């Protein structure tokens, strides 16, 4: 999923300072799962913003709504009945959702309330870790199911570097050395001999080097 974290409260407060009617929009997808911008977080942020205004002896109108998927024009259309009645939109979706809303409702300022972090997986309750960089040319099939692009701090394709100690990355003990993990997994799979295959310099075009990515499926478009 795409992971996100709520922005510092003061940053959000500054965005909306000039406005008195806000449409606060959550998303039912990734940001709900990572507890950053789902229905629950929309309620909590709305409440926090109310408390902020009460502190200043003011009031603010906040319409809370959580869309099925904010990165999909079909669902973003559901905001149409409310948009004219508000001064600004605050989106709790990832950057994809924020931009879909901003692209559809051109006259309304749209502000992000979360920082989109990475594509990750859940490691347990309340813990998410980066697992994919969207490089566009997946190598997991030859690296034992562990991604060197996302999980090696230096994106090494022929690792590990000389900084590994006690199986951890040189950047710190909370990060596993991806190449140690790859090696262990290759051994488990009886694929040790694959380690010495040279991995050639990567073509970064599918991962963004060729400009903003776009997929067009002729059979669906």
């Amino acid at each position, binding site marked *: 999923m795409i992971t996100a974290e709520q922005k510092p409260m003061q940053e959000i407060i500054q965005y909306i300072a000039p406005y008195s009617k806000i449409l606060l929009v959550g998303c039912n997808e990734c940001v709900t799962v990572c507890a950053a911008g789902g229905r629950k977080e929309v309620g909590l942020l709305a409440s926090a913003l109310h408390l902020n205004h009460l502190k200043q002896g003011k009031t603010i109108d906040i319409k809370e709504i959580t869309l099925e998927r904010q990165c999909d024009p079909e669902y973003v259309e559901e905001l149409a009945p409310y948009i004219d009645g508000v001064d600004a939109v605050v989106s709790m979706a990832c950057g994809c959702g924020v931009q879909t809303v901003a692209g559809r409702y051109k006259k309304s300022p749209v502000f992000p309330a979360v920082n989109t972090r990475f594509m990750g997986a859940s490691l347990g309750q309340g813990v998410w870790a980066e697992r994919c960089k969207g490089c566009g040319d997946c190598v997991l099939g030859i690296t034992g199911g562990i991604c060197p692009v996302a999980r090696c*701090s*230096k*994106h*090494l*394709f*022929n*690792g*590990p*570097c*000389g*900084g*590994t*100690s*006690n*199986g951890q990355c*040189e*950047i*710190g003990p909370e990060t596993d050395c991806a*190449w*140690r993990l790859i*090696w*262990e997994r290759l051994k488990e799979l009886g694929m040790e001999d694959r*380690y*010495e295959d*040279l*991995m*050639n*310099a*990567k073509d*970064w075009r599918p991962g963004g080097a060729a400009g903003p990515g776009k997929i067009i499926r002729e059979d669906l478009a």
Partner: protein
Amino acid sequence: MNTQSRLEKILASGELAVTSECGPPRGARPEKVKEKSALLKDHVDGINVTDNQTAMVRMSSFAAAVIIKQMGLDPIMQMVARDRNRLAMQSDIIGAYAFGINTMLCLSGDHAKFGDHPMAKGVFDIDSVQMINMVRRMRDDETFQGGAKIDGAPKMFIGAAANPFADPFELRVMRLAKKIKAGVDFIQTQCIFNLDKFEEWMKGVTDRGLDKKVHILAGITPMKSVGMARYMKNKVPGMDIPDTVIKRLEGVSKQQQPEEGIKMAVESIERIKQIKGVHGFHIMAIEWEEKVPQIVEQAGLYPRPKV
């Protein structure tokens, strides 16, 4: 012989090679490069010029290598994958070669986290193994990494690093084999303090006959003090400092520690000379370049052969 590199000539002659290094200054002070290099000039066959070592901004290795070259010495230009993409690397390699720099070292580079710009985005377009391969193809196939022909190919003698002490240990010989496959000519190892482990690694190297395919220069660092030893043990990633090293330094007075450190370095060289497959030494006297001549002389590696 593939190149004009003095280091290649020494190694081809079968003599033990000696290299050392010079960390460029953190400012436009060419005289600092000259001072450090002058200390080394008669005692080494090549001077490594580090590339933003420990991710701290310094004078570029290219520029400092040019200064050293213009002194009539032999720089070994280091290049890290952290700070350049393949375009920048190749243009710098051609540029350096145009100035007569014919020996280089391909490295991944310390993570930016350790330096003075931890907020910087690391490039890591290609890794050190891929860099080796790129430089080899520029030399042997006279082509750029992208495939086009080079008019005036840089003929670099290609080096890389190896850390026999980082884990997983069992991968360390295999990764060397990978660098050899990519086209590396010589290897400078991480500082060796755990000689038993280095011997074990070298046995793995020679068992596979890799010593016939690459020249291994053993990394030697003299300890200035017990404080430095403790710091390296605890703070420097991938460093293996046995307690015996620390104990021995603790056993002498503070004033005697530098001399003891040099003695230990010389003893290490003497022992490593006996190890099959070692073709030379890379002496990294960190901010202590003036001691390199003494170490080289005491270790019986002086005078340097003329090639």
